[in-house]
């Protein structure tokens, strides 16, 4: 025999459970819609080192001189190896990539370097695991600066242009 109060308590029990699920699921869905929310919450502070503001990016009066990508550590590459990137290059695991990454976390066409407006610009080509510029995930074209650190999976490079 079920008591009416017991039924109400049981309904309350289920209601609390469903509300809890809805609450967690809501924030989870929000995370999924903006996957990099937690990585780039708000603009970087003005004095942040290693992150270059987009405004000063095009300000360099003369273009880069002899831009190169230097291997720091990458599977299948000798550290210190340099790639000329003045004419642009695709980084990836696939056959058509100019800079082949033997890295399981790299996509076949992972990222692109190209000359745009007198600067070398790094773009992620919709890779699965993302491209990191100075340990910030790259979303949209990012101009490179002397000494910038580029990471794809476990492959790490830095950029030099003089």
């Amino acid at each position, binding site marked *: 025999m*079920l008591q009416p109060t*017991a039924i109400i308590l*049981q309904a309350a029990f289920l209601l609390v459970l469903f509300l809890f699920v809805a609450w967690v699921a809501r924030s*989870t869905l929000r995370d999924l819609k903006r996957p990099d929310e937690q*990585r780039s*919450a708000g603009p970087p502070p003005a004095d942040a080192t290693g992150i270059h503001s987009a405004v000063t990016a095009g300000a360099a009066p003369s273009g880069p001189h002899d831009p190169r990508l230097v291997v720091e550590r990458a599977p299948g590459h000798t550290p210190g190896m340099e790639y000329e990137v003045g004419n642009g290059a695709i980084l990836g695991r696939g056959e058509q990539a100019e800079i082949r990454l033997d890295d399981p976390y790299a996509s076949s066409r992972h990222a692109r370097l190209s000359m745009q407006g007198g600067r070398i610009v790094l773009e992620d080509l919709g890779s699965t695991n993302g491209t990191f510029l100075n340990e910030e995930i790259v979303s949209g074209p990012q101009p490179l600066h002397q000494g910038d650190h580029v990471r794809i999976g476990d492959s790490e490079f830095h950029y030099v242009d003089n």
Partner: protein
Amino acid sequence: MSARNRELLGLLPASLLIVAGFGAVFLQEQAKLGNLSLTYGAIFLGLCLAAHLIIRVRLPDADPYLLPIIAVLASIGLVVIYRLNETLARDQAQWFVVGLIAFAATILLLRDYRVLERYRYLIAAASLFLLLLPRIPGIGQQANGAYLGIGLGPVTFQPAEFAKIGIIIFLASYLRDTRALLVSRKRFGITLPRLKHIGPLLLVWGLAMLMLVFIRDLGSSLMFFGGFLAMLYVATDRLIFPVVGFGLFGLGAWFFANTVGHVADRVSAWQHPFDPKLYEQIGGSYQIAQSLFAQADGGVWGQGFGQALISVGDSPILPAAQTDLIYAVIVNELGLIGGIVLLLIYVLFVERGFRIAVLARDSFSKLLATGLTTVVALQVFVIVGGVTKVIPLTGVTLPFVSYGGSSIVANFVIAALLLLISDRARREARR
């Protein structure tokens, strides 16, 4: 709202569940509603607050939803176990406290979990030893044909619950080193690693098969091996590994199902639970058939708390109701609705776990979070799949819900490790 305040808010539903759940059970059993259920809710809230404070101080950036999810699961478990047996519920509450202590100890002592990598072979050896302990005569105990528990004085203890954590740590560390090598060689257009790289992995497969024969437990074996394949897939991004792995596992399981008597019995009980001969037979299909009856009886809305028929006199209607069949009891009393919401909560747990793996920056953390989450997910699959007749029934616990000390303590350690990984990942991501 900050992550930690969100976590604090999330603990409220769990204590409300305790109050409402215990209230409903008291009403059913004693036909009166005391304020004891409020006291229980307050004690539970206090324990969760202690865990919350430790996280607030030591892991300020950790995932805010994991602890509330665990608290909700544990509160469902406590209510249902209390409804089954008051003494067991008291035990379970004590184990919950021990679990929280283990949780706190893991967080406080293991500030940088990456030191675990240094001891990986020691951890692997200790885990193997733990797995084989139940076969040692004198302390090993056999239950329903499977060797899972050991008895040390008054306490029985299931070493496999702890061994699974150790093996996941070992595999995460091993795969971090070798994942590049595993995909480096291609033959005939497919990835074909050298024997010396794939060897240890074949060893793990052999181990899973060995467990099937020696410990006679398909569930744990599936859990370990599935967790291993998930990690292998994440480490190499090659679908061929899990495909071949499941093929090998299927082959092995099929072979043993036809040759080892104990496994064969389980399989025929699973295929024909309503066969009168198997139903009557000791260790036959009685348990799985009764579980299916109980769930069907629950319907969509359930029979109500305290309504499930657990036993008549001394003969059990639902054998092992507090461990293996707890999901069947929940579906009987709370209905399909209750079963669905419980599974949804596990889905959320697994989602949080994989999210931690996605956010983690270094390979070891990524693999460790993947492995730990997959093992919990597979454990839920093995037991819920077992009681709903999707796969042969094997006795593993429903994480955080079933009665069982080793299980709850081990799962709290898993949760602590996930929070440690999450704290580091989210702190680095914020920078």
